[in-house]
């Protein structure tokens, strides 16, 4: 299993390199010139050339790419600007006048808080409701749950967010507009700023998990080994939880790991709508301002989270399902 994990990590490194190269190439091909922004309003072509030179943008693309890569591991000095970017250096945002890595680290806490809270909510709600629907398949309760899950899935995330903002913050004045505080500084403010974003994301994902749990549970409960469990005289609760849920959770876990990995990199719409200074909002702003180093950094981070989440899920699979052999 350790050999397997190491092999997978190697593969992840390779994937990251490819993603890095592709993203880099895309930015190189884009008409946007980052130097133009950095150059400012009263930009002359001479000044632009200076800025380009200072930013290292006049170098051949391969040189730029290699210096970017080596910067990640060894740090580098940016162009001729004399700006020092310590390892891991993911480039420098002229927009924020800060190394990208510092920006990412700064925002990661917000996105992680958002993702973790939402994940707990949607997992509990999704699995519980899905389970109830599956066990009472065909009943009114089942139909109600399935219908509301369907309705929520079809609602776009900005609609859910907008409704919550309108009714809870603007109309109801039940909560102030989110003002994010780190959990260690002010736990109450942390919760207050995240509760609506949590609900927004949880509503979105819970709907999917309800349907997933329901389908998986219905399938599991029709398995012959469930009949065996009943034939042993086990109480129905044991049959459902120990024998049914155990199998049902396996596919759910896979999706959960990948969803969580994706969310860690930032829920762009949710963070933007609630003004949460997370990775998603950072990305949103960076795209708007063609802040390419930031977009590149977030892309790499997102890819890393998703591939790592995949690996963790695959390893967990082996713990849950004894039939899984790593090869």
């Amino acid at each position, binding site marked *: 299993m350790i050999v397997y994990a190491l092999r997978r990590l190697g593969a992840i490194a390779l994937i990251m390199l490819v993603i890095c190269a592709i993203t880099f190439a895309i930015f190189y091909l884009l008409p946007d010139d980052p130097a133009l922004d950095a150059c400012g309003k009263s930009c002359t072509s001479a000044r632009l050339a200076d800025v380009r030179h200072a930013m290292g943008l006049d170098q051949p693309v391969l040189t730029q790419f290699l210096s970017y890569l080596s910067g990640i591991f060894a740090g580098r000095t940016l162009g001729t600007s004399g700006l020092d970017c310590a390892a891991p250096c993911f480039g420098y945002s002229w927009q924020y006048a800060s190394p990208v890595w510092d920006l990412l680290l700064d925002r990661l806490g917000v996105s992680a808080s958002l993702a973790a809270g939402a994940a707990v909510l949607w997992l509990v709600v999704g699995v519980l409701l899905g389970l109830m629907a599956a066990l009472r398949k065909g009943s009114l309760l089942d139909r109600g749950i399935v219908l509301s899950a369907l309705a929520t899935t079809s609602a776009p995330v900005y609609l859910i967010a907008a409704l919550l903002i309108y009714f809870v913050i603007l109309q109801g004045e039940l909560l102030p507009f989110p003002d994010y505080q780190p959990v260690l500084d002010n736990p109450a403010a942390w919760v207050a700023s995240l509760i609506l974003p949590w609900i927004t994301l949880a509503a979105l994902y819970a709907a999917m998990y309800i349907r997933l749990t329901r389908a998986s549970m219905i399938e599991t409960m029709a*398995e*012959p*080994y469930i*009949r*065996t*469990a*009943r*034939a*042993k*005289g*086990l*109480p129905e609760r044991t049959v459902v939880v120990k*024998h049914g849920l*155990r*199998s049902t959770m396996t596919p759910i876990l896979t999706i959960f790991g990948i969803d969580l990995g994706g969310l860690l990199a930032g829920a762009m719409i949710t963070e933007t709508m609630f003004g949460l200074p997370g990775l998603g909002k950072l990305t949103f702003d960076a795209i708007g301002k063609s802040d390419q180093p930031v977009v590149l950094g977030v892309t790499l981070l997102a890819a890393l989270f998703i591939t790592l989440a995949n690996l963790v899920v695959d390893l967990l699979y082996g713990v*849950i*399902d*004894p*039939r899984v052999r790593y090869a």
Partner: protein
Amino acid sequence: MSLLSVDNLSVAFGRVRVVDGVSFSVDRGRTLGIVGESGSGKSVSTLAIMGLLRGASVTGSVTFDGEELVGAPAERLRSLRGARLSMIFQDPLSSLHPFYTVGEQIAEAYRLHKKASRKVAHERAVEMLGEVGIPAPRRRAREHPHRFSGGMRQRVMIAMALACEPDLLIADEPTTALDVTVQAQILELIQRLQSEYGLGIIMITHDLGVVARIADDVLVMYGGRAAERAASARVFDDPRHPYTQGLLASVPGLGRGTEGPGGGRLRAIPGNPPLPSAFPPGCRFHPRCSVALDICATEQPALLGTVRQVACHREGEL
């Protein structure tokens, strides 16, 4: 008094009655074989006895050791299941939970019914694995079902079913999924355990060879009803129901069908068994029966007789 007496058992799913007035009994230490083509209601009848049918309406009477089970509280049935009434199934792989070790799965029922500690139950599981002929039972108890061969898995199922020393074992096609040599071993094992524990057994199968080998009594089912019911020797030496005769004639080396006028030629019964939603009126076998009379299409033949019972209008003539 019989260990299990089933009287006029009917099972309906919604308005479709898939088992219709079936009666039989099983004594301690004896084996009843239930035969019939797929869909004839063998599994449903026995699942009904176990209280394992959900959403079905069960009528008639099932007395187990003097106690009525039809209409008994679900909790009462549950406490009998796995303790005094056990069941094993056709596909031993999918009938075992893939995520738990075989030891855990055998110990589970023992812990529950005997209020045994985890440790005692585990010892019992190891003992049972040895009892059903699994080598190195202590080590194998800690393995998961996918590490066992088909025959070994069925042995595990048998160990699980017998861990609490039940009085009755219902075996629903336990050898159908296994190859021939393994089939024979499993049947031998069941017979050995039967004499050891004094088990009453219901052996469900569509394989007459299995019945010929281990059953004391035979119930032949067709279309959810009993076609013929008698001691095994009678059924094989002198089948009376045209359906039983047809079944026997389609199996090599069994009964007189092969030595009869056909001269050892195998004759399968033409056509297919009916679906419960489209059971024909009268004798349900009449569309496939080569000796049917007019009355067969309209009147249901009663199951008549004492030592042997046959449901056929032409009983006695043929």
